[in-house]
């Protein structure tokens, strides 16, 4: 197989050498009337630009016809409709400019080819023309800027107070949606609280306690290992470093535990964590908060014309109002399997291409029903028991 490829390469090379020789010899043979020949082939080359121009526009139209139906359906959010209007407005301007400039370019290229005994016009500049084509784009751009920015200001304005608060939490390689629960407040979270039962690191009195116990246990285990490694060796250094790190982590968590005495960290009790798909009601504003566990991800919801990066170390926000239910969109697109999707749109590692979640838009009634079925982060019993014991403590 490799030999065949080698042979093929040699053959191509030989063919090219022979081809160039033929070009050279034919060039020499017709040497007497080189000007005329150059004129002819130069004119052909000029005309080829027209052919290319037609083919280019044909390609554009063909792509539009074939793939136009595959583009995103109408926006399923209030601001998305605005974005689409601005986009279409820009398209009109851009395609007009594209068409005019390309027609001129290809027309001039094909018309003003070299002719013997002919001279180009000595035109160095034209102030009037230049003034026109500087100010005209400037005016058009001013319109584009004003139109675009007014949309931008609307979209990025203050989040509505009556909006449903949802957190989209990203990690390699999956999403978790967190609902704020009855109080519509998302509980605090921190990476030091993450464990198998608390993937988002929510802070509640129980998770503080659990993590304290876990880490204390880990420290004990590590200390037990200490005598088994050689004194003064690399292993010992590694182990002591690890213990020190765990102790620092414990100190951080203890800090939260002291704050807890003033009745904090209860807002996370009624939060609800869901995976695979999340639901939102139609016609109600949703305020999203985004967080990331590890690297930068981006929450991209193309049907809602919404996107925001999830950046470790900070929270970002975006809000929109869904306008079309999943069921309605299935009818509109004629696709019974259609689903709104959330996907990751910032390179985040090997499985970046498959980090997704379905979004279901439904009536408020259905949404409330669905949400009620989702389990709370802290069960009602646990929370009540804790509150009672806290009250007793306070009375004492």
């Amino acid at each position, binding site marked *: 197989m490799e030999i065949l490829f080698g042979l093929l390469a040699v053959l191509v*090379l030989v063919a*090219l050498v022979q081809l160039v020789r033929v*070009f*050279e010899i034919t060039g020499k043979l017709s040497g007497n009337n080189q000007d005329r020949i150059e004129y002819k082939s*130069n004119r052909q080359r*000029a005309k*080829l630009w027209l052919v290319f121009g037609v083919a280019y526009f044909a390609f554009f139209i063909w792509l539009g016809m074939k*793939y136009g*139906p*595959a*583009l995103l359906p109408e926006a399923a959010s209030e601001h998305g409709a605005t*974005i689409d209007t*601005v986009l279409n407005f820009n398209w009109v301007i*851009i395609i007009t400019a594209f068409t005019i*400039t390309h027609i001129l370019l290809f027309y*001039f*290229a094909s018309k*003003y*080819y070299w002719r013997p005994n002919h*001279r*180009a*016009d*000595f*035109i*160095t*500049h034209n102030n009037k*023309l230049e003034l026109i*084509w500087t100010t005209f*784009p400037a005016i058009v751009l001013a319109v*584009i800027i004003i139109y*675009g*920015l007014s949309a*931008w*200001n609307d*979209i*990025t304005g203050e989040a509505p107070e009556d909006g449903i608060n949802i957190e989209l939490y990203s990690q390699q390689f999956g999403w978790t949606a967190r609902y704020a629960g009855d109080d519509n407040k998302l509980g605090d979270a*921190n*990476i*030091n609280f993450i464990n198998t039962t608390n993937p988002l690191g929510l802070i509640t009195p129980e998770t503080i306690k659990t993590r304290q116990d876990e880490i204390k246990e880990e420290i004990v285990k590590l200390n037990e290992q200490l005598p088994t490694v050689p004194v003064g060796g690399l292993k010992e250094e590694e182990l002591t470093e690890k213990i020190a790190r765990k102790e620092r982590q414990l100190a951080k968590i203890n800090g939260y535990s002291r704050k807890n005495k003033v009745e904090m960290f209860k807002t996370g009790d009624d939060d609800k964590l869901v995976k695979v798909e999340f639901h939102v009601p139609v016609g109600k504003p949703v305020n999203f908060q985004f967080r990331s566990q*590890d*690297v*930068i991800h981006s929450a*991209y919801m*193309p049907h809602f*014309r*919404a*996107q*925001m990066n999830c*950046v*470790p*170390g900070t929270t*970002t926000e975006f809000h929109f109002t869904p306008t079309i239910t999943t069921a309605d969109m299935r009818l509109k697109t004629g696709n019974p399997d259609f689903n709104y999707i959330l996907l990751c*749109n910032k*390179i985040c*590692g*090997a*499985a*970046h*291409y*498959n980090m997704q979640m379905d979004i279901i838009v439904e009536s408020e009634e259905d949404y409330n029903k669905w949400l009620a079925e989702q389990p709370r982060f802290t069960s009602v019993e646990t929370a009540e028991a804790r509150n009672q014991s806290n009250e007793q403590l306070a009375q004492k």
Partner: protein
Amino acid sequence: MGAHAHKETFVTKYLFSHDHKMIAKQFLVTGMFMATIGMLMSVLFRLQLAYPGESFKILSFFLGEKWAPGGVLDPNMYLALGTIHGTIMVFFLLTAGLSGTFANLLIPLQIGARDMASGFMNMLSYWLFAGASVIMLCSLFVESGPASAGWTVYPPLSALPQAIPGSGMGMTLWIISMALFIASSLIGGLNYIVTIINLRTKGMKMTRLPLSVWALFVTAILGLLSFPVLLSCVLLLMLDRMFGTSFYLSDIYLAGEALENSGGSPILYQHLFWFLGHPEVYIILLPALGLTSEIIANNSRKPIFGYRAMVGSILAIGFLSFIVWGHHMFVTGMDPFIGAVFTFTTLLIAIPSAVKAFNYITTLWKGNIRFTPAMMFSVGMVSTFISGGLTGIILADSALDINLHDTYFVVAHFHIVMGLSAVLAMFAGVYHWYPKMYGRMMNMKLGYAHFWLTFISGYGVFFPMHFMGLAGVPRRYYTNSEFPLFDAFIDMNVIITVFAIIGSAAQILFFFNFFYSMFRGPKASQNPWQANSLEWTTPVEHIHGNWPGALPVVHRWAYDYSKPGKEDDFVPQTVPLEEGEVDGEH
């Protein structure tokens, strides 16, 4: 050994040469070599995109069982190929390859200087670049794979080896290579600036400089002001990676462990990166526009339309390019007001860009156009510059960017406006100045075939991507098959890959023509294109010092083509003005 003396001349002439013409050729050939690798990588990942999960012998041939088990591309290697493809094309081909070649070749020759201000620094600039290239290539062979966090290498992904294998040794080598590369750029750029300011021959006023030199001048200034920011940016990344600092890292839980880094911001990295990153686009594009200006005026046998406006727009683009970087970060959660400012400044760039496009078109108008291969590439470049530039208006609009950010629409936009345009202009430059570099002519017919295949496949690859982007298909996906929504684009991906293969194969024509003509091409005459600029007054055989006698004296601008009352349709810059004749744009 008797061959000792001969060997030394080989070393000083071909390796450690101080002669700007030789250094230009070194940059060109190194750039071509790197580009071949970058292009081949794109073919490899295009195969995966067209036929996801299918086995290809060529993949296991190049990548081995580790990175292409059973001939199927590994997802990590897919990301690595994209990363190194981008790095090579943006920096090694279109920054060093383009500026390095043509700034070195053209600046001294077109301004009438014996050589660069410092020949030694010029040599150093090349060898730092060569070193950077070698290190970047070495990074392809480390066990954990080359850098693979995308060519922008955003932390935390690029900072933590636990996040992706490519962020191990491969990423370290990437940073070292880029540090050398930046040093090379800075030394080269300083030299270009000093040479243009100080070494112009008698009569070569700034207002008489050819547009190619103007473009290369502003390019060098942009590089000088922005590359140091990238250097500090990647050095801070190095500190985060190796010494436990937290410039870019905060609150990260990875691989079952809560990291202690706290207080840093990954967004800071993006600000620093794009403070270079956006001027970088113009570091690539301005030389391309400069070369095209020369070639279009020369082959239209007509002065470039609006010389002053052209210089003005180069300066305006150069200035504006420094205050637009935030448009790469509209969806990072930045303050919406700042986003609005960046939208405004970014859209302003469209004005000087439009002026340039109109000036090219009107230079063709009423011309007497000779379609040499260089001219074909230049006209093609004007087309791609317009096609790609216009979609920039959409991406600059922060409200519209929300839904198009990081989709294939962006890939289409920047590949056409700076990738294709700059590559076409670079080819144009090579075909046009080949006789100056090697004293021989390239084969024209192969040149035409090369042009049409490259140009058509360039559009064939990138134009359809606009539609994918508008349908919401994200870039940097190993496969789209996880989303039924994107099934409509399965056959489009095949079309794109076929064009990519045709376009890549077409480069064989160029490489053959390039090396064959070096030895067997017809000898060039002194001024084969009947051009006005000074480089064509030097002898065909290179001599150190460029002109055998005194330096030429310049009497007019470089664009007296088809001037009324002159015998020929060109008047070299060295011809004195006649009595009553006015110079330049009148």
